[in-house]
C-alpha cells in the first residue's frame, strides 16, 4: 500500500502515467477482470466475507495466492499452513522483481518509490512490461508502469466486488457457470504460460498429485501438490535431460 505515499506528480512529469493507464484499459484489464470476477464469485460461493475478499485483491494482488487462500481456508486448513502455501506460491515475485528493477531505473537505487512500485507487480503487469519496455525510454518507464498497474488494480478490485455480488443476483445455474470461470482462468494461464519442458513437467506432476493428496489430507493437499509434484517434475526433467545428453 506504500504507493499512496508517493506523490504522482513526482514520477509523472511527462504524461507517462497516463500512457500506461491508457495501454492497460482494454484487453489486459478485461482479461484480468474475467479472472477476478470468477474469483469473487468463488469466494462468495464458499461463504466468505465480502470485505475480506475485496481486501485480498488490494493487499495480496496475486490471484494464485488469493485462490489458494480462499480454497484452503474454506477446507479448514490451519493458519500457518495457509500462510506458508500462499508465500510459496508468491516466491516467483522475487526473480520477477529482480529482473524488472534494472529496467525501471538507470542506477541501482533503494528509493521508496521502487519499494512502492514493487507492490504493483503482478503476472499480467510484469509480462506486459517485459514486452513493452524496450520501446519506452527508461526515464518514462516508472510512471508508465504505475499508470498501467494501478489501472489493472482498480479494474480487478471492481471485478472482485462485481463477481462477489453478481453471484447473488444471478439465477443459481448462471452463478455456477460464473464460479467455474475461476479454475478455468488458471488452467488456461498455466497451459499457455510455459513454453519450456521444465515448467510443463511440474504442471503435469502437480495436477496428478493435487487430487490424490486431497483424498488423503484436504488441508495439506495444495502444499503437497507443490512440494511433491514440483520436485518430481524437477527430477523427471533433470533425469530426462541427462539421458538425452548421454545418448
Amino acid at each position, binding site marked *: 500500500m506504500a504507493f499512496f505515499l508517493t506523490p504522482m506528480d513526482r514520477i509523472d512529469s511527462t504524461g507517462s502515467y497516463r500512457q500506461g493507464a491508457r495501454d492497460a484499459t482494454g484487453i489486459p484489464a478485461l482479461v484480468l477482470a474475467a479472472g477476478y470476477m470468477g474469483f469473487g464469485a468463488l469466494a462468495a460461493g464458499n461463504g466468505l466475507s465480502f470485505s475480506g475478499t475485496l481486501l485480498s485483491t488490494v*493487499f495480496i494482488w496475486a490471484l494464485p495466492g488469493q485462490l489458494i487462500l480462499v*480454497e484452503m481456508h474454506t*477446507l479448514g486448513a490451519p493458519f500457518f499452513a495457509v500462510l506458508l502455501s500462499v*508465500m510459496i506460491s508468491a516466491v516467483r515475485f*522475487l526473480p520477477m522483481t529482480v529482473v524488472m528493477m534494472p529496467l525501471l531505473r538507470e542506477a541501482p537505487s533503494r528509493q521508496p518509490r521502487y519499494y512502492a512500485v*514493487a507492490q504493483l507487480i503482478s503476472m499480467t503487469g510484469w509480462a506486459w512490461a517485459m514486452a513493452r519496455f524496450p520501446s519506452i525510454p527508461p526515464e518514462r518507464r516508472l510512471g508508465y508502469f504505475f499508470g498501467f498497474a494501478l489501472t489493472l488494480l482498480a479494474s480487478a478490485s471492481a471485478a472482485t466486488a462485481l463477481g462477489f455480488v453478481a453471484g447473488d443476483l444471478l439465477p443459481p445455474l448462471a452463478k*455456477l457457470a460464473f464460479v*467455474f470461470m475461476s479454475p478455468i482462468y488458471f488452467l488456461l494461464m498455466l497451459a*499457455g504460460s510455459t513454453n519450456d519442458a521444465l515448467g510443463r513437467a511440474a504442471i503435469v506432476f502437480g495436477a496428478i498429485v493435487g487430487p490424490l493428496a*486431497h483424498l488423503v489430507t484436504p488441508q495439506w493437499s495444495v502444499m503437497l501438490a507443490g512440494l511433491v509434484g514440483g520436485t518430481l517434475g524437477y527430477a523427471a526433467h533433470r533425469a530426462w535431460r541427462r539421458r538425452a545428453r548421454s545418448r
Partner: protein
Amino acid sequence: MSEYMLLVIACGAGTYLWRGLGVAVSAKLSTDSELFAWVGCVAFAMLAGLVSRIVLIPSGALENTALWQRLAATAVALVVYFVVTKKNLLAGVLSSAAAMYVLLVAVAKSAG
C-alpha cells in the same frame, strides 16, 4: 477480526516480502540458478494441483455440478483457447462458462 481477515493481511505481507526483497537484492542476485528453477517448479505444481483438484473434486458452490459437466466445459476452454482462437484467454474463459451454463440448463430441463 475474523480469521479470514487476519489471513488476508498476513498473506498480503507475506507476498510483499518477496517483492520488497526483490528490490533490495536486485543489483546482486542472478535469477538463473537451480534453486530458482526448483522453486518455480513447486509454485507451478502447487497451482496445477489446486486447479485439477477443483475440477475433479470441488468444494463450495461447484459441488452442485457433475464431473462430466466440469470436464466437458474444461475441454471447451482448451479447444477454444488453443485451437480456435490461438491463445485468446478471454474467449477461452467465457466460452467455457457459456458451455457450463448450457450443460447445467440442459440437465435441469430434462430432470423436470
